[in-house]
């Protein structure tokens, strides 16, 4: 009835207008999508142009050369980053996964509600504040900078990331699965670990890798904790070099040679983060996956 009442000509025009709007909006969104990835693409191109030429075997195996000498590498910073990330992961992963499991299993508990909220606050905390936290408790009392303090600062940053991701992943495990395990006579704790956590594991591993990738490039929390070190050190109670910090130091120096190394370091850091991210995707797709795939 209504359609017959309307004259046909404006109707056709409105359809044409909707089609045009549709095309324009899709184009705008596609443009936004391209813009979203543009920074990464430009960054990669620029890094490759500036840094690739400086990457050779020496970059990974040699120590930084004194100012004025050409060559040299960032072996100490690469190893330092690996040590810092290991310390961070050994704190952030167990604490984060445990807390996440607790939040998911006791979702209504008062403690869970406050932990969830605080963990979100912690997640939004500026990273330099994490550095102050580690400095206050681990640098000031001891009297000197250390790899441990840096690792703890990074680990503290990891905790909320891993906690919330674990909680999300554990929540996707169907209740029916939990009940099936309980009905078989699994104690609660074994149900949580052997069935629920195990089923959510691919997703949790992915989240853990993303968290590691995220903290591997942090500089601010390391400024007054790990501090940096121009010499070879693997001791956790001594100041230690790290890639992001070395890049920062070299980039603001006045020497061309150091600038060159800073570019190369940035490229290596980005490559490291990309590899971890790719690894994370690979884990999610694995065959015996649980809810993650």
């Amino acid at each position, binding site marked *: 009835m209504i359609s017959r009442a309307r004259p046909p000509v404006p109707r056709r025009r409105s359809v044409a207008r909707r089609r045009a709007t549709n095309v324009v909006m899709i184009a705008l969104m596609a443009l936004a999508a391209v813009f979203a990835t543009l920074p990464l693409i430009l960054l990669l191109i620029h890094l490759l142009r500036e840094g690739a030429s400086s990457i050779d075997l020496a970059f990974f195996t040699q120590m930084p050369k004194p100012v004025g000498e050409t060559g040299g590498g960032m072996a100490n910073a690469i190893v330092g980053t690996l040590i810092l990330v290991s310390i961070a992961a050994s704190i952030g992963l167990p604490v984060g996964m445990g807390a996440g499991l607790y939040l998911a299993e006791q979702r209504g508990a008062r403690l869970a509600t406050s932990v969830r909220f605080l963990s979100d606050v912690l997640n939004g905390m500026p990273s330099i504040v994490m550095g102050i936290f580690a400095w206050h408790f681990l640098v000031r009392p001891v009297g000197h900078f250390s790899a441990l303090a840096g690792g703890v600062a990074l680990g503290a940053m990891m905790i909320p990331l891993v906690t919330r991701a674990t909680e999300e992943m554990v929540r996707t495990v169907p209740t029916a699965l939990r*009940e*099936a395990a309980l009905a078989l006579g699994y104690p609660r704790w074994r149900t949580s670990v052997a*069935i629920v956590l195990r089923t959510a594991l691919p997703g949790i591993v992915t989240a853990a890798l993303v968290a590691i990738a995220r903290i591997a490039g942090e500089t601010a929390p390391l400024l007054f904790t790990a501090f940096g070190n121009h010499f070879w050190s693997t001791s956790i109670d001594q100041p230690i070099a790290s890639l992001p910090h070395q890049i920062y130091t070299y980039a603001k120096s006045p020497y061309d040679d150091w600038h060159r190394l800073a570019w190369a370091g940035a490229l290596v850091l980005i490559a490291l983060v990309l590899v971890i991210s790719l690894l994370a995707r690979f884990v999610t797709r694995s065959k015996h996956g649980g809810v993650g795939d």
Partner: protein
Amino acid sequence: MTDVVTRLKPPPVVQASTREAPHESRPRIVVRNLDALFGTHRAVRDVTIDFPDGQVTAIIGPSGCGKSTLLRCLNRMHETVPLARVNGEVLLDGKDLYARGVNPIEVRRHIGVVFQRPTPFPTMSIRDNVAAGLRAGTRDRPSRKREDEIVEESLRWAGLWEEVRDRLRDSATALSGGQQQRLCIARALATRPSVILLDEPTASLDPLSTQKVEELVHTLRGSVTVIIVTHNMQQAARVSDRTAFMLLGELVETGPTTGLFTTPRDSRTEDYITGRFG
């Protein structure tokens, strides 16, 4: 509790389709004045019923009548939900499952459950799924070899062995819905429970798979006490020796299946089975 297990016979080679009920009717489970509550809501009200040993008892009734909740009280699953409580007695072989000092985890190991939707553990292989119940405890785990035997026996019993014998190491999620449900039945049988609870086990299955599960229930008669909750009255009539009808949390009537369907004593039962409601 352990005496229940040791008394159990190995998987029976039951002659299917002997329709008459096993002569002996000593109750395996006795329920006395059972109330099941969710907070203040009484989902099951003052239910008293016997489940005879080796027989199949069907519980029928409209949605929300409390039949699944009653079933969940029998292996102490009801209390796993927050705010859920149980009053009354459930006796398994004369022992109250709700008595002080009874470990619910022990209870669940001796009473198998199969749920409405198949719940294979997605991270485990077919073999490990069947063996999952054997590994629930930290003690008394069977040897690898014994485990293999039990897995084969249970899968044969559930009628799934021929279909999966060549891919026991594959993920259980690769199976079809009907196969997954029979896998869950095999998993429940692996611990040799004296009682098995089926909570609408065919609700998500196609007719052919439903038929296979019903045949399986038939095979279990005589050696295992089966309690099956079902929406489907035809199914209750096909598989059960006795039927209980529940309405609004109360047990309205219980009796031999043929009797209940042909000459119900209560008018509400008659209304339900003739399709006047529900």
